[in-house]
């Protein structure tokens, strides 16, 4: 077995471990009656041990892949997103050891699992580095950024626990709507994973020619049935479905089709879950969050912003500028990815000022943390896929 195969297997081991560990954290909450018992629950400890095993396997994946390719596996969407999932678990382990709160694990691990599944939807083969990426800064800049972002993400997870616990799910309210919207979004990601995997297993492919926005002919391959056609498309795969409508040249109809498939399947999934549960999804999770101490969740949320913010600044701005100066001759060029890193940074700066000087704690702070995570994910997903720039790898 070569290193690349070993690496993939280790990633699978870690994936399974996180799944199992989630169950144990669930057990820790179910089985303990008092808060004290909950903090010291045996189930929680077992969950932690399994999480650590998964994390070690994940690290194993990272380093074997590094050994195989000769460069830090942080150079494309799959590698970056997987590392993000890994560091999210790492940050969770750290905070679990400090605060020992199984509720955090019950939310953090599933989110890590969703992130890793999302990562595997991207091309997974090992690619050699293009000249711009051939630098020691690839590792230094990206890993610091990933660590910073994952610690910041923990604050969103703590915020989520806080919100799920404290929002009154029996009455209609703005809060109830938005927390449910967060749950729905997470299920949409699952929808994306389900559709992509299904069509991949079916080996679906449909090729088209089209005219791109510079009026040049181009070719494109769909991996989902083409709901939308590219500008002036012509099918090359005979038995492919005929797209419903043709899109103008600036819209990438292939990505749009994938998106609509994901939303459709995700929505069906969501509706099914609602029909089974007969209440909002957030309400289903509420009992699991009930035992968490609100004040502690608020503190974890704030603490992780405090720990993550300097790391993020160092990785996503300072190291980024140093590398950009080496590779692109300027330390700052208003590239969309750079701008969104700045936006993330400004957002957390505002968060800290609101909290310190205007006393935004508890629920407000929790919402801000969730929005921060949305911005990070936007930068990770949307900026790469929608807004083209120097950073688009996928």
């Amino acid at each position, binding site marked *: 077995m070569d290193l690349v195969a070993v690496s993939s297997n280790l990633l699978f081991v870690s994936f399974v471990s996180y799944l199992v560990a989630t169950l144990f954290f669930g057990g820790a909450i179910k089985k303990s009656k008092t808060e004290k018992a909950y903090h010291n629950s045996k189930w929680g400890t077992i969950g932690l041990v399994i999480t650590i095993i998964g994390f070690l396997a994940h690290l194993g994946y990272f380093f074997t892949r590094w050994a195989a390719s000769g460069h830090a596996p942080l150079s494309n969407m799959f590698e970056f997103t997987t590392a993000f999932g890994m560091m999210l678990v790492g940050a969770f382990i750290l905070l679990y050891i400090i605060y020992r709160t199984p509720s955090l694990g019950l939310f953090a691990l599933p989110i890590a699992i969703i992130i890793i599944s999302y990562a595997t939807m991207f091309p997974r083969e090992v690619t*050699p580095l293009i000249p711009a990426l051939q630098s020691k800064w690839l590792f230094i800049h990206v890993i610091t950024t990933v660590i910073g972002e994952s610690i910041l993400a923990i604050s969103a997870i703590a915020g989520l626990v806080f919100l799920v616990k404290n929002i009154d799910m029996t009455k209609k309210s703005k809060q109830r709507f938005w927390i449910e919207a967060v749950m729905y979004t997470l299920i949409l990601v699952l929808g994306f994973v389900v559709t992509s995997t299904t069509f991949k297993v079916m080996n679906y492919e449909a090729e088209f020619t089209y005219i791109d926005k510079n009026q040049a002919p181009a070719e494109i391959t769909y991996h989902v049935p083409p709901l939308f056609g590219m500008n002036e498309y012509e099918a090359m795969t005979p038995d492919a479905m005929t797209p419903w409508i043709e899109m103008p040249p600036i819209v990438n109809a292939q990505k749009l089709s994938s998106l609509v498939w994901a939303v459709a399947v995700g929505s069906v999934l969501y509706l099914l879950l609602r029909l089974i549960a007969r209440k909002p999804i957030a309400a289903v999770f509420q009992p699991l969050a009930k035992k968490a101490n609100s004040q502690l969740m608020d*503190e974890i949320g*704030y*603490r992780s912003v405090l720990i993550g913010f300097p790391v993020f600044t160092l990785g996503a701005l300072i190291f980024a500028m140093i590398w950009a100066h080496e590779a692109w001759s300027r330390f700052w060029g208003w590239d969309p990815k750079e*701008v969104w890193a700045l936006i993330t940074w400004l957002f957390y700066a505002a968060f800290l000022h609101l909290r310190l000087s205007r006393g935004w704690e508890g629920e407000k702070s929790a919402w801000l943390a969730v929005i921060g995570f949305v911005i990070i994910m936007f930068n990770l997903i949307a900026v790469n896929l929608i807004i083209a*720039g120097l950073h688009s790898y996928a």
Partner: protein
Amino acid sequence: MSNIKCQCGHENPYGTELCEKCGRPLSEKAKKSDIVDMRYEGSSRRSQTYKSSIVDKIWNFFSSVKIGVSIIVAVLAASAIGTIFPQKFYVPATTDAEYAEYYERLYGVVGKIYYQLGFYDMYNSWWFKVLIVMLATSIIIASIDRVVPLYKSLKKQRTRRHPSFMKRQRIYGEGDVENTEEALAKAEEKLKELRYNVKTENGAILAEKHRFSRWGPYVNHTGLIIFFAGVLLRGIPGFYVDEAMWLREGETRNIVGAPGYVLENRGFILENYTKDEAEEVFGEALDKVGSIVKTYQTDVTLYKEKEGALPGSDDLEKMQDYSIVVNKPLKFNGYNVFQMDYKLNELSTMTFHLVNKSTEKSLGEFTVDLSKPEKEYDLGNGSSVKMIGFYPDYDGVKDGEPYSKSPVPNNPAFIFQMKTPDKPEGERSFVAIRQTLEVEENDYAVKFASAETRNISGLTIRKDKTLYILLLGGLIFMIGVIQGSYWQHRRIWVQKDAEGHILVAAHTNKNWFSLRKDLDKVRESAVLPAYIDRQDPELDKQEQEGDEK
């Protein structure tokens, strides 16, 4: 505007919420509240005091954190809008009309509005710059306004605080214990063990830790201001050079923006990954994408004008040979030369045959170096070809003459004078790519045989004297932000009041969890009354009581 005299005798500046010395609440608001607002120690923020002139009003405006956050959000929103469509500098256009056309063609009405509102050049717009300077102003003023009073009140704080201050702390406990003296002594000992700075004043303890973390925000703000100053300095000529140039293989050229330096391009290399080197690892990716570039490289030689030589003279000395690749710029005397771009396959030489049209026999061949053509090419045996006209970028005939629209050899054309033993007076021929014109029917012709091409390397030249200032700003920011976030200022007060009760209070600017842990540790060794955390009604009472037993 008068000072406020506290019952303890201390004179506090106007606007003070809590006495700087004993902590008694002074304002009505502070007196009424259950938990006192401990931000900036309840000291008087300078801006809140004077509200007379317009200058003070502007000052107060910028001093507000609310305004500061609003500016941050405005910058954030503007930056985000700027990423919706590509910015001006990523658009292949030069004139305003071309820009307008580009945005409208690709993005329709929205694109047109985007262009018209000036969002297509967001980060250079005057109002974006105004926002940034406002942000800097807010940072400076808000910091000055807070750091001075905070420093004063932390310096003046007394060990014994008034019970009304203690009672209004978030963490507070009171009660009687059997042996107060012993409890206080034990607490003092334990706090010292926990590395607190402990001060005592007949029956009162003030234990304090990591006060320096309170200065973190001001340190990081200083770093930001230094960074802004660095960015501003780039506007001064000489501080910042940003130029680009194309350098052909074999060409030697003055370096744009770096007077006194000359660069020779000895060759440009573009290399792709091949399957041979790492079949099993990269094979799959290469199959999928086709080819992936491994290297862009320009081999250069750097020359410098000799001491005292005038610009333009050939008095150069060689400095170094270097291979510029992406991520490894050529560095000299504060300048960096980067590999940024390339163009492949520009014509460099053309080889021709001189042939007899009827016999098709060649009288010999000659090669024209398009960047260094010669006047005459001697083919031997009495034949030669003379260059009468050379049009590197031939674009038809203008005013009765062949016309070259640029000096770049995109479409070379020549007028040759062919001398042969048969026709010693010579025949003239116009030769362009796929075209030969003759004034009268010639016996001989120049026939194109082959051509060679060369590559052009796109280089960027930068000099940035402000980089170290920016780096210093970044470093100070990092120190400040770490200082402020990775440590917390904790204080624990334990005292015996006039009636002999023990009062315990504690405060931190963040991380109450750890503060409570510290307090719990003190309570393990010293008998102290149980405390409550007023902001945490869910705190498990059992836990604390359990500890007490």
